[in-house]
């Protein structure tokens, strides 16, 4: 079963620059301490370098993730130093003061007030320093810089179990609604308004920013930006995202992609956004199959009509079989890279597998639960109809 995500060509994991440039305690003059730090550094490189992947937080492609990573790196190395210091003292005490045979009872000391005060003040200074720095970072990453380019606004809605992206104005006043793939222009701040229609989800693209929850009735706002000078590969580059808050049965399968593009490529994608053509007979037949079976939930000819969206949501919240539910907008499906909320590469084969048995690929999904054509337990379309539908959706001629 093809649940594999895939890497875009040209997008290869880089060795972690931030780790190798971080302080490793080599200044220490003690030889054995150098060895210890070397060992821990090697361990970190092993665990972060060898198992590097696209969800990794060790690498930042934008200013928000970079501020968070810098803060974490300093904290982590500070904690590594404290770790060796305290565990070292503990280990020293355990070895040095182990009981020898016939040893009398040791001196009965009860405490040392000066030492207590010193050992209270030092950690207080340490944690307060880090705490105050974090407060500065918090406010710094809260909003995009006011002197930069105008942010591109995107409304993101979390659904069980997929992401909807709405661009109120993607360029020249054109409104776009798409699903599970967020296309963004490079070097431009993206202002994200996070919503949810059902339960709490969390929006997370590790390479661009930490996560923020998508809470029903709460309009959370975050921003990020992909910097061209932080990305070594040629654009477009595909980044991974995943829902990070338990949101029900298919939570693990609620993934998405962020595609970072040159502004010009982004503009041409915006311009091309529209319903698939029906010039061939096969596509015409596919359009009929789609109209007869899919339109209760899916829109394919541009942004969803708000009234229709509202009635789908009402149907979803009411529950019951064969009620409409909010579903991914399929306009421009041919330009997408993935299927079923970022689960697998979109191709004729994977789309065919999905249409045949969505429950097998994504347990709990609402299409197999609610759509009329799956009520018998298997899909009630014949192979020819499925073939025509795929041709229509993927704009095959």
């Amino acid at each position: 079963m093809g649940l594999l995500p895939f890497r875009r060509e040209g997008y290869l994991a880089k060795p972690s620059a931030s780790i190798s440039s971080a302080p490793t305690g080599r200044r220490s003059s003690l030889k054995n301490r150098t060895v210890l730090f070397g060992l821990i550094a090697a361990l970190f490189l092993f665990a972060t370098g060898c198992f590097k992947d696209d969800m990794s937080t060790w690498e930042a492609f934008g200013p928000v993730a970079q501020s968070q990573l810098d803060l974490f790196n300093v904290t982590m190395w500070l904690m590594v130093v404290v770790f060796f210091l305290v565990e070292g003292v503990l280990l020293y005490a355990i070895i040095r003061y182990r009981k020898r045979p016939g040893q009398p009872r040791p001196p009965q000391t009860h405490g040392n007030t000066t030492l207590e005060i010193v050992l209270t003040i030092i950690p207080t200074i340490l944690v307060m320093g880090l705490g105050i720095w974090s407060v500065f970072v918090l406010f710094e990453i809260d909003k995009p810089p006011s002197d930069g380019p105008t942010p591109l606004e995107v409304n993101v809605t979390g659904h069980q179990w997929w992401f909807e992206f709405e661009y109120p104005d993607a360029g020249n006043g054109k409104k776009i609604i798409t699903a599970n793939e967020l296309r963004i222009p490079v070097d431009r701040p993206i202002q994200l308004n996070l919503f949810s229609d059902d339960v709490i989800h969390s929006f997370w693209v590790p390479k661009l920013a930490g996560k923020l929850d998508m809470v029903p009735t709460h309009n959370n706002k975050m921003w990020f930006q992909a910097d061209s000078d932080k990305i070594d590969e040629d654009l477009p580059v595909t980044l991974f995202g995943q829902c990070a808050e338990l949101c029900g049965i298919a939570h693990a399968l609620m993934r998405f992609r962020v595609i970072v593009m040159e502004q010009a490529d982004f503009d041409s994608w915006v311009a091309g956004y529209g319903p698939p053509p029906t010039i061939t007979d096969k596509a015409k037949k596919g359009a009929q199959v789609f109209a007869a079976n899919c339109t209760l939930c899916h829109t394919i000819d541009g942004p969803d009509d708000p009234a229709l969206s509202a009635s789908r949501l009402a149907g979803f919240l009411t529950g019951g079989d064969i009620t409409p539910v909010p579903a991914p907008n399929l306009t421009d499906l041919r330009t997408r890279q993935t299927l079923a909320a970022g689960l697998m590469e979109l191709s004729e084969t994977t789309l065919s597998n999905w249409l045949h048995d969505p429950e097998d690929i994504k347990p709990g999904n609402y299409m197999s639960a609610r759509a009329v054509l799956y009520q018998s337990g298997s899909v009630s379309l014949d192979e020819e109809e499925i073939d025509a539908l795929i041709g229509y959706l993927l704009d095959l001629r």
Partner: protein
Amino acid sequence: MAAITGVLARPTSYAGIWGWMTTVDHKRIAVLYGVTAVIFLLIGGVEAGFLRMQLASADNDFMGPARFNQLFTMHATTMIFMVIMPLSVSFFNFVVPLAIGARDVAFPRLNALSYWIFLFGALIMHMSFLVGQVPDAGWFSYANLTEKPFSIDRGLDYWAIGLLVMGAASVAGALNFVVTIINMRAPGMSMMRMPVFVWMTLITSILLVLAFPVITVGLIELTMDRNFGTHFFIPAEGGDPILWQHLFWVFGHPEVYILILPAMGIVSEIFPVFSGKPLFGYPFIVFSGIVIGIMGWAVWSHHMFTVGLGPVANSVFTITTMLIAVPTGVKIFNWIGTLWRGAIEFTTAMMFALGFIALFIIGGLSGISHAISPSDFQQQDTYYIVAHIHYVLFGGSIFGAFAGLYYWYPKLTGKMLDETLGKLNFWLMFIGMNLTFFPMHFLGLNGMPRRIYTYTAEFGWENLNRLASLGYIVLFFAFLVFIYNLWQTRNSRRVSHDPWDALGLEWSIASPPPAYNFAEIPQVEGLDQYWIMKERARAAGTPLTEPEALVDPSSIHMPSPSYWPIFTAVGVALIGGGLLSHYAISFLGGAIAMIGVIGWGNEPAAAPSEHH
């Protein structure tokens, strides 16, 4: 009514199953709590095993998402509410009256009631497995995933009702210990002469009394939302799911200290004994415990940094959370200070206590990295957090509890757990624990979210997950060694009343202690009273080698066993059970509980044989 219920004579038998069901003896109740907790440890451990088996390889289809969500929910709920908390209460019960020189707790029947209500609450929650409708929204059960139409079976009702019932037990038990510790200390034992474990029990009990009402409110609101059409947490009806998170974490963060402070108390008893010198900085350890107990109320939103509370709230909770690291650090310095220039004996109890410090340091340090909210935005809801909680709860609370078990077992039974097996137990647990949970730090930083039942090989998480699953196997063997060690003591020889040359009052009496504990209530002259007594006897040339002499038990009036605690607990359990099945049963349960309370109030003060 009074006439009817008053005629039920107090039970006289201390033997057999009825003896256990009607007991009000704090030592026997400690055993009940302990045995129950160990059984649930096995259940929760097996649940963890299934989770690790599923995650051991990428794209695994060992189990589906529905079962996976149920198992991680029940694993965490079981380990927190049915393992660590009752283990702590077991130690409170056994140790506190002995350590303060008392003959029992302040309210022995209330103590029994607490145990039975706790047990029935735990059973109610596990009944969900029998009906196949298991809680599946995580141990925090964030609304509105817990509301209709997203949660349609009764699983979450079992969860909420089970916790409500267990919560009643916790509050009753905690009140009992607050009253016991404040009122029943032996003459001369001022607050600052109390053993640290008793201090930590007092702080934990106060936290319990204050924290549980908050979760109770949340749970009642959730139950009403789900069953009676209210909408506290339903956004479509004007409710707010974030309200649940605040209620849960205002309880949940003090709860974290409820779980760890008893373990800190246990190791504070053990370090002096096996270092041969008194606790270093006793007042600092006590006051840092109090400070943790107070500051624990001001940090709850650090569980909610990614909820979108805004930079002002996040700043406040970042600073308060950073500050709470300080009193924790103070404790660690003082424990190391106790070891310093001591004569350290490596008994199993001591090794677990040392393991506690070593592992708790790691949990504390990773805690600092997500107290820093900007870096927590990346770590929240990843395996980095899973690593952290297991270093503090497994490396901390469970290692502390095992230290306590090995330490007090000879007092409880008069027999010693095997030290060789104990050390094997320790090393397997120490190695298994690090093998299981250390890789999770990297999994989290490499982007693996929590609570996902599957992942793909492309993400590069498979090797570290294998390592973690391997570690689980080691942990499982450690647990088997422990069970075997308990089992094999049935043939062990008896040991002296004071095998460790310990310092607390509990070691001055026979092992196992007689029902009345102290024939004569001791006069306390200072901290570490038994060391003071032994030192004086040694100086006088008549070393203390024998425990306090036993006396005729009938010469000391002890509370008689009672039917009413378990009777009343059945009523309380039926109230909860009725909410899950048929409301008529709730009314029946209410009537039974009412009769129980009246019978309780009218019970004769002593067994018939004792009417002189």
